[in-house]
């Protein structure tokens, strides 16, 4: 304890040269605190379950020939021929020996920006909730391995989908009915009352997606599509996904599949133009996301600040050690060991950091109180504040120790006699 007061005295005695370091540490501490807060939160969000399993999943991109092309096949019927062409392509993919599941969906896939939303409410008096519609075939649940809220196999959901009513996600059930078991209940969509046929696990669009999506599922029927007179463009808009046997998967499977199936997957004006691995789609989506960009930029700024803290401390401690040769010599002459001198200098650096951190933490705490930095639940706030503050302190402490180490070591290697001789 005594030594701490002694260090405080030294810090005070050199207040003029310390002022700049304190000011810099103060500012850098706040900036780093906010960054650590953002990074840890993003890390937590990233590692929460997404609900979708994209492994071994591929997307077959079906393109359509433009009407202006000379090879365009002109059909005179109201869409039955196009429907036949599309179903022929789907059947061909399904028959491929590697393929386990084939799913068709419309604007309902994870790792995309396109979605369809609509509102629903429990009754006319309650608040309306906006949920994302998933227009899918039953195979969708098996493809992405989506379980029921109770953890039952995807097949259960696949069975329920074509039946009357709709499937909703667990978080939507909780939002609407304050309970997970919502099967058999009814919700209002516009003027229709719709029965809940099953509840599936909570889903997210992607790893960075912080707000869980409220999801509901309706069956997509190709037959209905055909009856409505869907055109080539409509069919090309659908997402045709398939999962292959894990044993058959390889790094460039998409390319091989395209090479192998290109000629077979042509029917009328529809044709297979590309095959994409869903893992690649996921990777690209995450890499291009705003979060990934801001992480990169923030890391660069953080590194720049840490380098500056390093330079500031190494500079001033070098200066100080040079000035204090007499003092250090005297200490050593009176019997201080090298290690204690080193420790003493380190302590001085850490003391500076702590002195700067205290007012900085007041600012950070106010940021939390004023909700300027988003935090998780209210009760976890204080604990989180402590963790983040400690992590920031440690990060800066490491930088400071690294910066002080060389000048301090140099100081301890002065022969006491030589140091004393200056006096």
């Amino acid at each position, binding site marked *: 304890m005594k030594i701490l007061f002694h260090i405080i005295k030294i810090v005070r005695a050199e207040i003029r040269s310390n002022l*700049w370091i304190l000011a*810099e540490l103060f500012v850098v501490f706040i900036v780093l605190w906010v960054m650590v807060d953002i990074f840890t939160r993003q890390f937590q969000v990233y590692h929460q379950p997404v609900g979708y399993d994209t492994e071994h999943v591929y997307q077959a991109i079906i*393109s359509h*020939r*433009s009407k*202006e*092309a*000379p*090879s365009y096949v002109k059909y005179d019927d109201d869409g039955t021929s196009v429907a036949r062409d599309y179903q022929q392509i789907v059947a061909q993919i399904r028959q491929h020996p590697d393929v386990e599941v084939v799913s068709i969906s419309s604007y309902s896939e994870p790792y995309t*920006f396109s979605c369809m939303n609509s509102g629903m409410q429990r009754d006319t008096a309650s608040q309306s909730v906006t949920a994302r519609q998933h227009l899918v075939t039953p195979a969708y649940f098996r493809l992405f391995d989506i379980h029921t809220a109770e953890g039952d196999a995807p097949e259960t959901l696949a069975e329920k989908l074509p039946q009357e009513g709709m499937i909703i996600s667990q978080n939507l059930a909780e939002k609407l009915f304050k309970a997970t078991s919502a099967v058999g209940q009814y919700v209002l969509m516009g003027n229709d009352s719709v029965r809940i046929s099953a509840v599936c696990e909570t889903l997210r669009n992607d790893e960075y997606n912080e707000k869980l999506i409220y999801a509901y599922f309706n069956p997509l029927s190709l037959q209905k599509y055909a009856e409505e007179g869907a055109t080539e*463009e409509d069919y*090309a808009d659908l997402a045709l996904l398939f999962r292959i046997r894990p044993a058959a998967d390889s790094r460039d499977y998409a390319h091989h599949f395209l*090479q192998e199936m*290109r*000629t077979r997957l042509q029917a009328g004006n529809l044709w297979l*133009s*590309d095959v994409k691995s869903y893992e690649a789609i996921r990777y*690209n*989506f995450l*890499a*291009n*996301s*705003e979060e990934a*960009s801001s992480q*990169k*930029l923030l890391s*660069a700024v953080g590194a*720049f600040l840490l*380098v*500056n803290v*390093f*330079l*500031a401390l*190494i*500079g*001033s401690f*070098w*200066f100080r050690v*040079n*000035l204090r040769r007499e003092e250090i010599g005297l200490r050593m002459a009176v019997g201080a060991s090298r290690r204690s001198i080193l420790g003493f200098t380190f302590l001085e650096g850490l003391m500076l950091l702590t002195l700067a951190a205290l007012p900085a933490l007041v600012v950070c705490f106010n940021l939390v109180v004023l909700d300027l930095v988003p935090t998780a639940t209210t009760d976890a706030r204080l604990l989180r504040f402590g963790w983040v503050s400690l992590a920031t302190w440690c990060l800066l402490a490491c930088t400071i120790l690294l910066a002080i180490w*060389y*000048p301090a070591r140099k100081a301890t290697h002065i022969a006491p006699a030589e140091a004393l001789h200056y006096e």
Partner: protein
Amino acid sequence: MYWKLYIKQAWNLFKQNRFFSAIYVVGTGLAISMVMVLAVVYHIRTANIAPESHRARVCYLSDTSYKADEGNMQFQSNLGERLAREVFGSMQTPEAVSLSTNPNVIGRFGQEIFVQVPGGDDSPRVSYRACNAGFWRVFDFSFIDGKAFTEEEFQSGVRTAVISRSLARRLYHKEKVAGETLLLNDVAYRISGVVEDVSSLFPNAYAELWFPYTASIYQMGMNVAQEFRFACGHLEAVILMRQAKDFPAVQQEFDEAMKRFNTTLTEGKAVTPPLERSSFTISGIAQKDIYIAFALLTVLFLLVPALNLSGLNASQIQGRLEEIGIRKAFGASRRSLFMQVFVENLVLMLPGGVLGLLFSFVWVHGFKDILLTHDLWTLVLGVNGNNFLTAGMLLDPWVFVVAFGVCLALNLLSSWVPVWRAVRTPIVNALNM
């Protein structure tokens, strides 16, 4: 002057205190690299770099809206073919006008193009531009083989195309393919030329395939019936002026031509925003805000490291007060002492500057998506695939001059105070050390 001596001495000091020097060099390098990133980004986004070699004397028009006289109907989109042809065709002041589709926009309309060599089995989707002959005069492409299509070919709608080097390689496994036939969605085109690849960092010129829009396989709005499609379509205009100061005259002539065009419309009116000069934006942030941000960042990136480095300098000079005292005792002027430290620091700073420049290239490469994309959607959707950097973008005399200037500024800022204090130390005190 003792320049040679100073430099020699600095070199010896450098060798004597390797650790200090290494820290100093790396520290300055990082500090300089941050400012250099700003300079390089500014350079890439605004300088005249081929193919956008005339950024200083071009202006742009990409949007128009059409308002019907009756009802509330209003359309907004890129320029219609007829508007572009009649308005820009009548203008005399500009040197050339480029009209072309935008690959990013046209993709959203589902107007995809797949190319294929007759009999080949590879048919990739390509990024293309349907353009006029003026495009090749406004932008500066380097042809490896063949040449661009001519005004006559454009006027008569000849099916001819220019492709990029890498597309030629991919499809034909060779580069000199002028005269060969290429299928665009099954329609045969003759390749008139092959150009060097263009980076998608040139948003006005980038594509892999170019052909006359008069020969497009998609409807370009040339023979349309509805009047709103006279004004609204898929084209974007880049106007090359003879001199930058022609801008007001071009704008005036354009306004008159628009007035004439509007007299030919009977059901509504086309309204265009004013022509735009080349501006500096990052990820869709407006030029004014970017300039303010850049100014603040430059000050921050220079000042903070300078203050920190000055601490390092002070410690260095502290150890040399004896030397300074002796030199002063023998009659050295403050000026020459100052110059000595200044030159010594500069000798340390220059390798730092070179390092900083190299660091900045690494930064820019690593952050090119964020720093060099002109609008946010291109970034988030990841459609800026081909945004490679070339030596021409990074290595430029101007960039080197800025790098040296930054070195000098950082040096002055960081050595001024410590040297000033050291030089003013009374001789007796200094000698006493």
